[in-house]
């Protein structure tokens, strides 16, 4: 309790000072402020403002990544396992192994997962493989946590909290975030940097033509068409706005959402809101069959223009599937500015092995484009002018310095061992948090006032004693929360308000019992004694079950709900003490020591 008050005083003192003075004050009292902050009652992100994110490490992606020599059956089993774990608590690895064994009890998983360093050979049993996958998955989560922590630290968040939850989830709590979009990108980005060659321009035009034709007629025609009008449409660079804004239906589902381009490595242009539709059209297996062998299509990271309606437009580029170089070879990255236009860019430095490959790659592909791909999005695709030695490469034309800084951050922290997905996110702005605090505080005070008023009116002097116990109870609850390092959330405050109403219950039980004892003609002292003794079992029975409910809520709830459960439990424990022990001490003091009377109304 004391540190909480002290923390509040320090904060208000700092805010009363000017900026410079506040900075020196902070420096002078750094150790004290830190220790006070650590001991003080922590506020939840729903009150403080900030970001609460639950990330999940995609173990199924890790499994398919660890596997080699995969076939149709493998992906089918993995798919079945992925769907199955969605409705159960089971680990995907167990389900995967079980499904594999169900299909063919004699087959060995080791045929997919042969790995010399992990001692998985052709003869390894399925249990060995399962154990290997489990270790890999555990390590992936542990590494993901340390990489995410590194990214958050590089970004600079005060008092971040990053914890593992269960086997494959990570909870990231970041107080006082002003740019959640940037953080989201930093958290979920796998940071897989890849250097890839791109589609041959002639293949690109031919594919575009075939795909358009496919959607024109709706049937698969592999025969090369020479429809001149289509080629013309594909070859001419039209004004973006012409096609994207024309509401007239072209009669072609693809052309409705994509402007064909077909020049160089650019397949087409797509407005932001149409990307989902284009992705669907482009992933039709019959369409994929039309693509050049070993080529897939990716979007550019930044918009190439905007429609008149203000929607951003992205290029869809043909990129070869083969990865020539990965981010592993990057030893350093920094933010730079392009000499003439002063646009931000990221300069990357490679190790000697990377430099050799990069020199060979660029030397062999002068005149063509190389794509620099980060997490499935093309950040740059420079045209190679000459062989590059010395292992330098650049990601150019970035929108702003923040973006450049974030790329440097993820490159330096390293790539995540498996993709992560944001499965839950809650972001609260500071002003909404502040208004929640006020609403909560107001409810506590008003609730306290009415209950206290009622107790005095109904039970007179003993009501007053119960009210003292109630106030002591509130102080205890906050003390318990601070002492255990628990966090006060909005539902937690609701729990405190509820506790105010429930805490007097024990006293009501006792007082009613005392009244009953008095009505049988016993003395005040004997009545008090009898009342406390007889009410005890009922108080205990009724409180302990609510306490159990609190324990259960705590184990199944997330974030704010746990805060409610904690205050509920703290409230029960402290109210048992204050209502039974504290009031009794006061009663005995008044009645026995002072020989005064206490009214029970």
């Amino acid at each position, binding site marked *: 309790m004391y540190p909480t008050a002290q923390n509040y005083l320090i904060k208000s003192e700092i805010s009363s000072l000017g900026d410079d003075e506040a900075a020196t004050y902070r420096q002078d009292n750094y150790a004290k402020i830190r220790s006070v902050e650590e001991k003080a009652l922590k506020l939840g992100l729903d009150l403080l403002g900030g970001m609460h994110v639950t990330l999940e490490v995609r173990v199924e992606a890790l499994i398919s990544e660890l596997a080699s020599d995969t076939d149709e059956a493998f992906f089918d089993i993995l798919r079945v396992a992925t769907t199955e774990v969605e409705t159960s608590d089971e680990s995907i690895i167990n389900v995967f192994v079980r499904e594999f064994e169900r299909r063919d009890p004699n087959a060995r998983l080791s045929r997919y997962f042969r790995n010399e360093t992990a001692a998985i050979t052709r003869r390894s049993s399925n249990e060995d493989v399962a154990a290997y996958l489990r270790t890999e998955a555990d390590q992936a989560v542990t590494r993901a946590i340390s990489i995410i922590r590194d990214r958050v630290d590089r970004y600079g968040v005060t008092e971040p909290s990053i914890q593992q939850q269960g086997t494959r989830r990570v909870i990231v709590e970041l107080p006082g975030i002003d740019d959640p979009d940037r953080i989201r990108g930093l958290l979920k980005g796998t940071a897989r940097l890849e250097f890839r060659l791109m589609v041959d321009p002639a293949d690109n035009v031919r594919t575009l033509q075939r795909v358009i034709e496919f959607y024109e007629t709706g049937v698969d025609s592999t025969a090369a068409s020479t429809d001149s009008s289509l080629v013309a449409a594909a070859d001419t660079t039209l004004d973006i706005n012409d096609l994207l804004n024309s509401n007239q239906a072209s009669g072609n589902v693809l052309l409705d959402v994509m402007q064909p381009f077909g020049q160089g490595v650019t397949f087409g242009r797509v407005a932001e809101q149409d990307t989902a539709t284009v992705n669907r059209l482009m992933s039709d297996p019959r369409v994929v069959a039309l693509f050049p062998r070993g080529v897939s299509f990716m979007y550019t990271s930044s918009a190439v223009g905007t429609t008149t309606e203000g929607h951003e437009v992205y290029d869809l580029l043909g990129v070869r599937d083969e990865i020539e170089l990965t981010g592993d070879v990057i030893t350093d990255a920094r933010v730079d500015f392009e000499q003439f236009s002063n646009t931000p860019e990221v300069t990357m430095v490679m190790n000697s092995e990377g430099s050799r490959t990069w020199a060979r790659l660029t030397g062999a592909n002068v005149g063509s484009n190389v794509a620099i791909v980060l997490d499935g999005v093309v950040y740059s695709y420079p045209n190679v002018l000459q062989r590059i030695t010395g292992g330098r490469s650049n990601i150019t034309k970035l929108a702003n310095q923040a973006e450049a800084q974030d790329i440097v951050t993820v490159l330096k922290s390293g790539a995540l061992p498996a993709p992560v997905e944001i499965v839950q*996110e809650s972001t609260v702005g500071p002003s*909404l948090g502040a208004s*929640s605090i006020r609403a909560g505080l107001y409810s506590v005070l008003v*609730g306290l006032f009415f209950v206290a008023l009622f107790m005095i009116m109904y039970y007179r*002097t003993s009501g007053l004693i119960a009210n003292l116990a109630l106030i002591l109870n509130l102080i205890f609850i906050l003390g318990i929360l601070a002492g255990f390092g628990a966090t006060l959330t909005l539902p937690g405050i609701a729990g405190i308000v509820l506790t105010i*109403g429930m805490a007097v*219950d024990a006293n009501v039980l006792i007082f009613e019992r005392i009244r009953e004892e008095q009505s049988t003609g016993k003395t005040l002292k004997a009545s008090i004694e009898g009342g406390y003794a007889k009410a005890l079992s009922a108080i205990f029975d009724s409180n302990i079950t609510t306490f159990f409910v609190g324990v259960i809520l705590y184990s199944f709830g997330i974030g704010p709900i746990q805060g409610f459960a904690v205050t509920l439990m703290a409230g029960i424990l402290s109210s048992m003490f204050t209502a039974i022990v504290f009031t009794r001490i006061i009663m005995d003091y008044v009645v026995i020591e002072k020989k005064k009377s206490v*009214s029970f109304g």
Partner: protein
Amino acid sequence: MKKPIRAITVIDMRIFENSNLSIIGSRRKGYIFSGILILISLISFAVNGLELGVDFKGGREFVIETSTVLDATAVRSALASVLSSDPEVKTYVVEGVDQLLVRTVGEEDIDVVKGQLIRGIADAFPGSEPVIEKTYVVSARFAKDLERGAIYSIIGSLLVIFVYVLIRFEWRFGVGAVTALFHDVLITLGVFSIFQGHIGFSLQIDQTIVAAFLSIVGYSLNDTVVVFDRIREYTGLFKSENYDTIINKSINNTLSRTIITSGTTLLVVVVLFIFGGEVLRGFAFALLIGILIGTYSSIFVASPIVLELRNRATKGR
């Protein structure tokens, strides 16, 4: 504290002090009343169903502050044209600031959706200066986990309570207590099902509501246990008395405190409902209904069931 402050009191406050209501005698009326409420609830579940919140259904929820007052239906139609699905829009005022609550479903990137929301509102209502104050996103898969957690915690709570009452009292009391709890939760859920969409605040079932339900379970038991405790005491005390009389006496003698404890709790819940803000309104509403029903059931449902079970046993002999 020289003298009791009796002088300033106007009335002597004693509620149901020496009540002698024939609660056991009129228990059939209670059964009929409860039966009707449960029937209405079940019909409402079948007809209206229950509206699940973002926690259990998955989806996105945004709180957007605007500098001008906007009409919910107008915002809805403006957003329907920019978003891929029809959103759900509510408007309210918090501390003089106009806020919009927007709920959407879909799998698009969250940054894209936020951009669409801001642009959609800013374009349709120039000068409204929308700012996203709160974002809450739950993926469908995570929602399933939360749902499972909620179901486990409800079953777990009922089980723990049953076992506890079983250990402390005899099995008939356990059955009585758990029946009363089912009764309370069922009817409170029924109220949610009937009023959803017809009331000024959200009655979607989310984690907070589940927490409220479990609190109701814990609290309603509170009242029930006090009566049971008294029945146990009186059974030892008045051995010659009829069991009906003992139970009736127990209920009557604890009536005053049942009403008062529920009253004080109800008081703070009403305060929470009025002052606790938009986030806690559904929570407070659940508690409000739950405590009312819970108090009723601890008098008219739990103990009479114990009696019925006992009567059946003696008849069988």
